[in-house]
């Protein structure tokens, strides 16, 4: 395939995807679980890709993602709550001390920037640490951030440990898709640039990379800051999706979930992270819910074992099986591409159903 043809295909697919989403939204009732999964999946895809940039492409093992999402989410929420609602949101703090509201896109970017600034500051000392020590230090950092945001002395800004709400949210499923899509596209551009090649060199062998003239400290910090920026943006999106946020949501369990998504998708594969985030969210929120139904009958057979909580046990077993038997994840380090897809179907089935598989080509 020629380069122009490839681009046309890609653009065409993205347009088709957006149109399909748009049509679905007109046709289906807004309460359908499909939209819940698509919205949350798009947001998690962004944060998973941002984590993959660190863990998969630069080889920095960081577990601070939840902390950076918290920073993004709080910045977004604090800056966008309309002045009129502040009194009721900050009910224990006399309306808080911030009395303006920024437009949504600016606040989202501000959320990313705050996360990036914190990443820069924390990166100065901790990026010198090696592998697991870095992981535990960033995990600790996320916990510290969470405690600081719950501190009641900061209440006039953060509303203490209470919920933040009434900020602008999105209704259309297109919104998170477009925002995450742009962000992921930026990350892909970065990965394919000279910087991206330097990141991969660091991942493969630090010492060799240094010998080739790559400034380790600079590149590691760059990857860390950029990854945190996008984690911050996805935090802002998550706030929009949840409609209310609270520091206690951003626990280390959240980071583990994102890490699982990255690994299941394939460490070092952007499209893998996207696909697995949709699958992960769909399984945990939607497809397995019937397992919680105590009175499930197949014909007249009363299915045993089913009761609330069983869904999660099954889900955990599925994940364990994935980890043990598909170590490489869904995509390994490969990428899902139109070209690969085209060649694949060309070889196997001639030309049929190329379009259908392309529907899930996220962004």
């Amino acid at each position, binding site marked *: 395939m020629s380069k122009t043809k490839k681009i046309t295909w890609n653009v065409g697919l993205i347009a088709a995807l957006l149109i399909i989403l748009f049509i679905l939204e007109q046709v289906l009732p807004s309460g359908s679980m499909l939209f819940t999964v698509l919205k949350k999946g798009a947001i998690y895809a962004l944060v998973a890709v941002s984590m993959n940039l660190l863990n998969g492409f630069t080889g920095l093992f960081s577990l601070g993602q939840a902390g950076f999402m918290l920073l993004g989410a709080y910045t977004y929420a604090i800056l966008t709550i309309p002045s009129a609602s502040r009194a009721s949101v900050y009910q224990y703090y006399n309306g808080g001390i911030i009395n303006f509201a920024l437009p949504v896109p600016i606040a989202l970017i501000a959320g990313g920037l705050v996360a990036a600034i914190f990443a820069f500051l924390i990166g100065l000392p901790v990026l010198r640490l090696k592998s697991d*020590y870095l992981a535990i230090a960033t995990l600790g950092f996320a916990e*510290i951030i969470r405690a600081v945001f719950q501190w009641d002395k900061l209440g006039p800004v953060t509303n203490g440990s209470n919920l933040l709400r009434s900020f602008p949210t999105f209704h259309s499923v297109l919104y998170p898709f477009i925002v995450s899509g742009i962000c992921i596209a930026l990350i892909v551009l970065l990965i394919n640039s000279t910087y991206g090649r330097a990141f991969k060199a660091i991942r493969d062998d630090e010492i060799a990379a240094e010998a080739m003239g790559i400034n380790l400290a600079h590149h590691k910090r760059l990857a860390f800051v950029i990854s945190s920026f996008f984690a911050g943006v996805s935090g802002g999106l998550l706030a929009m999706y949840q409609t209310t946020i609270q520091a206690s949501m951003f626990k280390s369990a959240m980071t*583990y979930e994102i*890490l699982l998504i990255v690994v299941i998708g394939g460490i070092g594969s952007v499209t893998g992270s996207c696909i697995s985030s949709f699958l992960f969210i769909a399984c945990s929120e939607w497809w397995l819910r019937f397992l919680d139904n105590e009175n499930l009958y197949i014909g007249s057979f009363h299915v045993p074992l089913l009761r*609330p909580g069983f869904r*999660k046990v099954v889900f955990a077993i599925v994940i364990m099986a994935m980890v043990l038997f598909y170590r490489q994840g869904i995509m390994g380090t490969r990428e899902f591409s139109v070209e690969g897809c085209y060649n694949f179907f060309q070889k196997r089935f001639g030309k049929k159903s190329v379009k259908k598989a392309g529907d899930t080509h996220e962004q």
Partner: protein
Amino acid sequence: MDWISRNLPYLMAGISVGGQYALIAIGYTMVYGILRLINFAHGDIFMVAGLLLVYSATVMPMYIAIPLMIVVTVIIGFTVERVAYKPLRSAPRMSIMISAIGVSYLLQNLALYVTGGLSQQYPAIPWISDTITIFGTTTKRVTVITPILTIILVVILVLLIKYTKIGMAMRAASRDFETSQLMGIKINSVVSMTFVIGTFLAAVGSLLFFTNYTGVTPTVGAMPGLKAFVAAVFGGIGSIPGAVIGAFIIGICENIMKGLGLTTFSDAFTFALLIIILIAKPTGLFGEKATDKV
């Protein structure tokens, strides 16, 4: 005297929590020393041990229930290693760690399923649950027993590692995994033994912990587990005395923070301490300096 009776409870709570963290931390530090694996499931094994006693104590007398609980916990620890970690021995380290997170997820969700998500009341164990008075402070006997028992167990463990054959094998494996294999050490039995010791101590730790704090919930192991791991890193991962000292320091600091009224930060302080020590001394208080060969 007044000052003592006002502040002694904080210190005692700190020492006793420290002892409990220490027993969990040893499991982390030994496994990390040999496999270079952060065994995220260790805290959940600790929780499972708690649940086992809750359920076994309802059907059998305590003197059977406690040994049974310890044996079953050890079997679970052994099985987890065989099923979830051993097949991944040659895989990238990230895979094993994810497997550990997966096991942790599975154990928590199983516990959620079995308990229906409700907190289970831990049974009162005779004698150690009794209330006693020291220097005008009332507390449970377990508070005093914990540090003593911890130190006894640690001394036995250190002697075991120093003077027995399996101990020597463990030291060799933690020094150089591959070479020790070449030297004829049965690496699988060494790893299994490590897990057996680790889970045994976690089971004893859970006995002491839940006697003091009597609610067992599916996620109760997460925080103590994380803190015990921090203690292990703090003391220098791979070093048993380091883990014990780290655990006591963390337990005491945490309670001093609460005593000072900075309750919001009692958990965060632990992590702040960790980051500071890692920056100042990247391998922890007693860790050996690692050298990378090109």
